[in-house]
C-alpha cells in the first residue's frame, strides 16, 4: 500500500487538532459544557467566527443526543465504536450524564492515540472515569484498555487491523453497536470506506451508524472547499459520496445496510431542543445569516441501520 495513493496522512491527522481547537473555542464561550476538553487541549483556544461555533455546537450536540438515545433505548446493553475519534470527549460526557454502554471503543491513527493516551494518563478526571476497582488499566504507548473504555491505534483502511483491534477490545458482535464517524470516511478512498461499511453490516448483528460529513459538494461552495483542502494536503478521496443527501444514504444501502437517512445541518438545527438552541443563539449575535445558511447546507448527518429498531433513533 503506497502512502501516496491516499494523499498525506499528516493532513488528515492535523484535522483532529483543528477540530479540537474549534471545540475548545466554542466550549470556552459557553456553547456546551465539556470540563474534559481542557485536559486534551490545554492551550487557550483561538477565537473563531460565530458561524463556526454554532456549527460545532450543532454537530457535537446532535451526535450526543443520538448516542444518548441509543444507549437509553438499549438500556446500556450496547457498544459504541468511534471511528477516527481524535481527541473527542464523548465517552466522558456521556458518563457524567449517567450513560454508560458496555463498551466504548475509539479507533484512530497511532499518532493520535499516542497523544490521547498521554493526556489521559496525566489527567485525574479522565483517568477516574475509565477506572474501576476490579479492573486494571492496561496501556502501552498507543493503546489503552480502561474499564469500558478502549483506545486503539489502527489504520481504518486496513480491515484486518480494524478487526484485530476490535477483537482485542473484546467486541461482542451480537450486541447492538453504534458507530460514529465525524469527517472520516471522506478521507478514505471509496473502495476502502465501502469495504469497511460492508464488513460492519455483515459482522455485527445489530448495527447503527452516525456519519457526520460534507454534503452538496457539487456547487461553487464545494469547489472552493475542495481546492482549499487540497492546498492543505487533505485530499477528499471520498468526495463522491458527499455529492447529495441521496448519495450519502446510498453508500450505506449499497453495502448491505437496511436503510439510511441523511439530514443537512439546517434540518438538524430545527430539530435540536428549542430551549437550548435559543440559549446558544443568544451567546453570539450573528451579523448576517447567509454564511451560516451556506455552511449548514453543506454538512449533514446520516444515520444508517442494519436493524430496523434503530429507525427510531432520531433527533
Amino acid at each position, binding site marked *: 500500500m503506497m502512502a501516496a495513493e491516499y494523499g498525506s496522512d499528516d493532513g488528515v491527522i492535523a484535522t483532529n487538532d483543528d477540530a479540537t481547537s474549534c471545540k475548545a473555542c466554542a466550549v470556552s464561550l459557553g456553547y456546551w459544557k465539556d470540563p474534559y476538553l481542557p485536559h486534551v487541549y490545554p492551550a487557550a483556544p483561538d477565537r473563531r*467566527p460565530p458561524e463556526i461555533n454554532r456549527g460545532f455546537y450543532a454537530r457535537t450536540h446532535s451526535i450526543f443526543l443520538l448516542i444518548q438515545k441509543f444507549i437509553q433505548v438499549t438500556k446500556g446493553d450496547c457498544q459504541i465504536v468511534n471511528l477516527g475519534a481524535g481527541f473527542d470527549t464523548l465517552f466522558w460526557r456521556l458518563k457524567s450524564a449517567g450513560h454508560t454502554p458496555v463498551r466504548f471503543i475509539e479507533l484512530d491513527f497511532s499518532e493520535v492515540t499516542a497523544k490521547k493516551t498521554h493526556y489521559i494518563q496525566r489527567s485525574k478526571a479522565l483517568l477516574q472515569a475509565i477506572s474501576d476497582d476490579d479492573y486494571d488499566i492496561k496501556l502501552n504507548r498507543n493503546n489503552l484498555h480502561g474499564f469500558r473504555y478502549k483506545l486503539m491505534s489502527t489504520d481504518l483502511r486496513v480491515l484486518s487491523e480494524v478487526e484485530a483491534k476490535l477483537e482485542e477490545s473484546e467486541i461482542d458482535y451480537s450486541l447492538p453497536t453504534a458507530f460514529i464517524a465525524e469527517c472520516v470516511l471522506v478521507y478514505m478512498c471509496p473502495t476502502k470506506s465501502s469495504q469497511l461499511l460492508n464488513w460492519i453490516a455483515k459482522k455485527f448483528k445489530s448495527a447503527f451508524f452516525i456519519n457526520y460529513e460534507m454534503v452538496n459538494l457539487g456547487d461553487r461552495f464545494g469547489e472552493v472547499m475542495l481546492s482549499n483542502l487540497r492546498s492543505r494536503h487533505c485530499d477528499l478521496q471520498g468526495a463522491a459520496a458527499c455529492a447529495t443527501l441521496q448519495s450519502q444514504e446510498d453508500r450505506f444501502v449499497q453495502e448491505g445496510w437496511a436503510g439510511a437517512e441523511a439530514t443537512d445541518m439546517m434540518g438538524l438545527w430545527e430539530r435540536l431542543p428549542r430551549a437550548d438552541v435559543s440559549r446558544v443563539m443568544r451567546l453570539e*449575535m450573528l451579523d448576517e445569516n447567509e454564511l451560516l445558511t451556506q455552511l449548514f447546507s453543506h454538512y449533514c448527518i446520516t444515520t444508517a441501520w442494519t436493524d430496523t429498531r434503530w429507525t427510531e433513533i432520531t433527533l
Partner: protein
Amino acid sequence: MAKCSEDKKEEAEVHKLKANEFFQKQNYDKAIEFYSKAIECNSEEPIYYGNRSFAYLRMECFGYALEDATKAIEMDKSYVKGYYRRASAYMSLGKYKMALKDYETVVKVRPSDKDAKLKFTECQKIVQQMLFQKAIAVDDDKKSVADSINLDAMTIEDNYDGPALEDGKVTEKFMLDLMEYYKAQKKLHKKYAYKILLDIKAYFTKQPTLVDVHIPDDSKFTVCGDIHGQFYDLMNIFKLNGLPSPSNPYLFNGDFVDRGSFSIECIFTLFGYKLLYPNHFWMSRGNHESVTMNQMYGFEGEVKSKYSSQMGDLFTEVYNWLPLCHCLNKRVLVMHGGLFSSDTVTLDDIRKTERNRQPPEEGIMCELLWSDPMPGPGRAPSKRGVGTQFGPDVTKRFLDNNNLDYIIRSHEVKDDGYEVSHGGLCITVFSAPNYCDTMGNKGAFINLQGDTMEPKYVTYSAVEHPPVKPMAYANSLLRLFS
C-alpha cells in the same frame, strides 16, 4: 385557595423525595416531573418551587428557573435558597445587577457562607466591569489612547526595508511602496502605522456626520461596498478601476475589516489614501467598524497578532469618528446599512446625530449601519435583530422628503456583487468577491459621472490570495469538516 389537607401534604412529600432522588441521579427531566406533582398536591410549599428551580437551572431553562425561584421567595421571604436560585437564573440570563441584589441578600443572611461570598464577589466584578464599559463607550471626556502614544520613543530599526512616511506625511510613493510591501505579506513599521492612525483620527474628528461630496460634471466617481479584509481583491479593484487620485475619486462604504485575513493591510491602504487625497477619497463607517464585531469576526485578533491591543484601542477611537453617511452632489445618499424606522428623518437629523461612540442598539446611527431593504412595502423587524427592514415606499418617501434621487448602500452579500431594488431607488453594492472563501459571489463597484449621476456597474471575480496561516475564516471552515 383551599387549604391543603394533611393527606395531600404527605403525598406531596413523597413526590418531593422521589424528585430529589432523580435529581441526585442527574435525571432532571424526571425530577421536574415529580416536583410538579408535589406542587399539584401542595402549592404552598416554597421548597418545592426552590427545588424545581434548581432542576430547571441544571436543564438551562433559565426563564422557568427564574419563575420558580421568584415564586418561592414570594411565599417565604426568608427562604435563602430561593434567592440563591434566583441569582443563578439572573446570572445566566445576563441580568447581573438583579443577580447581585439577590447575592447580597444571601450574604447578609449567611455571612459565613464562603460559596455565597464568592458568587457575590464574582457577580460584583461583572457588574463593575459592565458599568466601566458603559462609561467608556459613551464618555468622550475620558483619557484617549491617542494621547498616550509616544511616537518619538519608537525607533526605526536599521534592517527595516519597508515604506516610510516622508516628514511624517503620506505621499504617492509611500502608497505605492506600501501596497507592494503588503502584497509581499510584510508589515508596516508600527511607528508609521501609529502616525497614520493619529493623523486619521485628527482628520475625522473635524468631519461632519453626514459629509457632502461634490463631484464635478465631467468627473468620474466610484463607490465601493464591503471589503472585509480581502486585500488582494482590493488590489484587483484598483487594477480594474485605476488607483485613487484627484481625477479618480473613491468612496468606500464601510466594513473594511473583519472576516478576511488581511484587514490590517486593507485599513492602512484606505486610511493612507484618505490622508493623501482627503478631498477625493471618502470612507463611511460600517457595522463592522465596532468593538463587538471586531472581537467576534477577527479584526481584534489580527491587530493584536500583528501589532498590539493598544493599537486595537486606538482603532476603536478612530472608528468612532468615521462619518456615517455621504451625500453626493446633493442627489445620492450613501450609507452602509440603510434607512430608518421613522418617516420623519431628515438629512439634518443625520447631521445632528452624535456619532463618537459605539453603535447604539436603536436610533438613527444604528439604522444607518444595520438596516436592510426588503421587497414588500412598509417596515418589518430586521432579520439581524438590529436595525429595521424598509420597503420601496419607505425609500420613496425618504427620498422625496429630502430631495434626493436614490440611495446606495452595502451590508449584504449579493451574488453579482450588486443589486438594484425598489425600482432603482435603492442600490446595494458589495465589493468582497467569494466572501469568506465561501459564498462564490462576484464583487462589484459603481461608476458614476458627476453630471448624470447614473450608476454603471462593474463586476469581477475573486483573485487568488496567499494561504495565510491562519487563514482565519477559511481555516475555520475547513475545521468544520474535520
